[in-house]
């Protein structure tokens, strides 16, 4: 198994590829079926934000270790318009698109670690980690 995988996100089919890559990486690490689904769903949300707001970007998946724990780190990054009001973007129901506003706050609830950096006009980077239970 590769320790790191990069998936270019250019279209909605790439969103599916990114979450399938995470699934096979997580399965190899012994993630539970529930955790695989939570991780895949979180990736779907952040990868869709790329296609919706930035048009293109990438998702990288990496196996990470902390003491005796193993997890999967997901970094979704783009050079899109960035997020003007990050605090509001992390609240349920806030959207500047036509979605439900569940993307970022929802993804945050599905993973263990979650961090967003965004510079308006320069891009957005979401880093999440799901640890094996």
């Amino acid at each position, binding site marked *: 198994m590769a320790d790191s995988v990069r998936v270019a996100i250019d*279209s*909605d*089919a790439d*969103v*599916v590829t990114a*979450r*399938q890559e995470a*699934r096979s990486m997580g399965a190899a690490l012994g993630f539970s*079926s*529930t955790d*695989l*689904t*939570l991780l*895949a*769903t979180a990736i*779907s*949300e952040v990868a*869709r934000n790329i*296609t919706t707001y930035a048009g293109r970007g990438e998702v990288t998946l990496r196996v990470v270790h902390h003491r005796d724990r193993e997890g999967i780190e997901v970094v979704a990054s783009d050079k899109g318009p960035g997020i003007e009001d990050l605090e509001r973007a992390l609240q*349920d129901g806030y959207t500047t698109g036509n*979605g*439900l506003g*569940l*993307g970022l*706050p*929802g*993804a945050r*609830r*599905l993973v263990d670690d979650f961090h967003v950096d965004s510079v308006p006009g320069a891009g957005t980077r979401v880093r999440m980690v799901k640890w094996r239970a």
Partner: protein
Amino acid sequence: MAVPILKQGPFLIASIQAALTDTDVLRLQDDVMRQVGRYRSRGIVVDVTALDVMDSFVSRSLRGIAHMTRLRGAETVIVGIQPEVAFAMVQLGMNFEDVHTALDLEEGLAFLQEKIVQEPGPGGG
């Protein structure tokens, strides 16, 4: 990949076979709406057993199908949501309360049959 839609009596059965892209989901919405009109269907079962992820876009689109078909006089029932998927939907914060769901295809069809008996068509009841 297009989702096959079968006509069974007054009902339509859409069986999702594999992971859906957003484009596939929107196409399913269009196809269902068109076929409800063509076949004068009274109910639709959307079988999502094969879906390993129902993110906010897919969930919203399925809810959209349920609302739109209801406006055309047909009830939609979503069947086969896997336990892990249900768990993830709740964590995500998806509100699916106004959508009919059933355990599997059999239960979904039974639900629709009952609905139709309860609401007789023109001339009936």
